[in-house]
């Protein structure tokens, strides 16, 4: 039995400990804000926080989240109004939108560590997240806007 916290709520899981967290979130908890993009740690669509750090849930086994606190996009803010989510809205960032929850979760972890990221910090911090629609320049801008608001 694996115990973990998801968005503040205690959960227990007694399935395959090798199963990636992604499928637990999506198929079992029906939290589909965390996306399946590559299943191999290559695209960032599945990004969530484990004890505050950004991880790729597609490549993180259930046994590796035992006793940990997981935050998904559904738990990032109560009303979808985290400064990043607001900045995303202001810049009308999404195109198809599929990558965006992963982008936001990655950016949230970045801003937690680095309150005033430079262009280079943003590039380095976000390089693991693919946006096939190419919304990158708005992502940069939105991260800067949110950083300002959070400062």
């Amino acid at each position, binding site marked *: 039995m694996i115990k973990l916290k998801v968005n503040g709520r205690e959960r227990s899981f007694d399935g*395959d400990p090798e*199963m*990636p967290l992604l*499928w637990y979130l*999506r*198929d*079992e908890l*029906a*939290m*589909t*804000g*965390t*996306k*399946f*993009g*590559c*299943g*191999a740690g*290559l*695209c960032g*669509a599945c990004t969530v926080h484990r004890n505050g750090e950004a991880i790729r849930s597609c490549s993180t086994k259930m046994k590796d989240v035992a006793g940990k606190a997981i935050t*998904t*996009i*559904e738990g990032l803010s109560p009303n*979808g109004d985290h400064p990043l*989510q607001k900045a*995303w*809205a202001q810049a*009308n*960032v*999404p*195109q*198809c*939108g*599929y*990558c*965006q*929850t992963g982008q*936001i979760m990655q950016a949230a972890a970045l801003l937690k560590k680095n309150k005033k990221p430079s262009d280079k910090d*943003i*590039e*380095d911090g*976000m*390089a*693991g*997240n*693919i*946006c*096939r*629609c*190419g*919304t*990158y*320049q*708005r*992502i*940069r801008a939105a991260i800067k806007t949110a950083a300002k608001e959070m400062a």
Partner: protein
Amino acid sequence: MSIQKIDNVTRRNFIGGVFSASALVIAADLLPQAAWADTAEYHGKAASAALKPSLYLGLEPDGTVYIVTHRSEMGTGIRTTLPLIAADEMEADWSKVKIEQAIGDATYGDQNTDGSKSIRGFFVPFRQAGAAARLMLTQAAAAQWKVPVSECSAMNHEVTHQPSGKKLGYGALAVAAGKLPAPKPEDLKLKSRSEWRYIGHNAKDPKSIADLKDITSGKAIFGMDAKVPNMVYASVERPPVMGGKVQSFDDKAALQVKGVSQTVSIPPFQAPYTFQPLGGVAVVANSTWAAFQGRKQLKVEWNNGEHASHDSERYKAELLDTAKKPGKVVRNVGDVDAAFAKGGKIVEASYYVPLLAHATMEPPVAIAEFKNGKVEAWVPTQNPQAVQDTVAKALGIKVEDVTCHVTLLGGGFGRKSKPDYVAEAALISKSVGKPVKVVWTREDDIKFDYYHAVAGMYHKASMDDKGKVTGWLHRSVFPSISSMNDEKALYGFNVEYGMGLNDMPFDIPNHRAENGPAKAHVRIGWLRSVANIYHVFSGLSFADELAHAAGRDSLEYQLELLGSGKILDLKPQLNGQEYWNYGEKIEQYPFDTRRLRKVLEIAGEKSGWGKRKPGNGWGMGVAFARSFTSYVASVVEVEVDKAGKIRIPKTYMVVDAGTVVNPERAVSQFEGAAAFGASIALTGEISLADGRVRQSNFHDYPVARINQAPIQTDVHIVESEELPGGIGEPGVPPFVPAFANAVFAATGKRVRELPFSKAKLV
């Protein structure tokens, strides 16, 4: 495109049951859309139906306006942009508009969200639908007040009697207006441009995309996120070689995996491949993960068939070789051979673009439930009517017995117009008796795509002593999309020719375009901007080569090649072929090279073209294209470091797309096109060995990341009152050669083969 008839169908039963019985509903019937591709299976379907209401707009007594979008949202913003048109004409309050996604149904008209044609096709019908609603509401108010209609005007969700100042809200008028006869199209008074409140450049505040909040909070439902009760999951092992068949399989170990319930055989396609599934063996389980795990345990013996020896390197050599030989003439002006015989300077070059995969962020996925001889499906699809047809055919049921709900699409780019993945889900569901969700892995997506065609091109030109081009020969060889419907197809067709091969707009006295034969060994499909990708890459790279050969500035030279500007008359030059013109009438959408000159000139100004001397790892490149009836010039600025690493600090896109309904979303599409073009140019390559695709995921099929895509793309949209043109695709074609030309300017290395990652730049 116009409404033939506006039908007040208040009491009619509505598809999807969106409206209450008392709602005022406008149905606009329109002429059939041109089919995307002449040879596509779905051609003529819209044309054969007698009446095709393409859109529905409804108003409820509570004042809520429902606008049904029948086109698919894959990132262009169409779910926002189409409703804006109708809402503007209706004088609706945007905050009272609710957007409903249509299911697949031919009565909506063309739903194939492809070819950058949603606005081209439906701008007028949506305006007319809105205007009809406004007129009926005004008439209803006038009747109630017993005053002349001419004394009443509608604005922002209410009708005002001007002399008395009396007002009635739209909601209060809905029922009475719904009883009035529908106006004739000719009685409609469309708003003048200056009266537009939501459409175009004078829209006060750009509207957020309809699904914004849902997307950023994780609530948006993409196909991957849809769920229905009792659903099971499936993952399919498909033949590694196109056209291969299962010889035998052993599912013992697969069935041992916890959660796996059964396996299901999917029959191979009957050639030609069309939109049929590839066939194979599906593993069915109670979760996605269990299905994936079970599939890994499958042992399948394949009968690989005729394409098992296909090899990309050999094929490439064949294509380039074929391109050196005379092919089928698809356009002829003057006498190229005579021009070449006269001598002068001769320049020639071969270009190559490999197969490309769509790699939509959301891999293909579909839910289907077969029950009582009918199928209900929930799909991220660009083409719900093709879903109906394909599923119906695969299961031997009637088209009207297939219901296709359209979810949000995590990207489309043409992949999700081909519903092979939905037929898989339906076939498996029939077998297991439950709703089935088929989830493609990224590996499946990369290995079993309908690939953008690989192409070999050859260009040869002669120039006089002043550097003026006297003759230009362009040959193009590629496996055609028509192989989808004819496995023996060797040549392209007018859709592919009309994307940069038979419509090169240079004003040259002697010009010939030819198409050589090539057989398809993988499924070929269309990818964002289609044949333009290879034709415009080679054509505009070659133009740059000519500029350098002539010792001239490339932008100036490209302008000179265009001549002083005119409306092209291609028809007499195409050997009896019809010029495709992106499915539009040439009188409505003429090919006007003055518009190309203009975007090029503006791009020069905006980018500060020519101000900085290129070289030493810095350079700018320029190119242009008219595609999907829009005119675009791109300037790309690059830096190439000592290790050969390319960075794109800045890109300029200048766009004349005629009337632009939603400039903010248009800008985002051109930003995205630059990133898409960067992926194609930098790293895009699918290759095969022994008939099998080598690549499998983003490590070996990389797409541009935040540090590889242009850091900043400035989009300038030319204000224009011309008819609306395409937006989603036209940014891609000019970007790629502009990028290649920039790399040349920076490094002196001419990259004639994509992707750049294979070229030695330092």
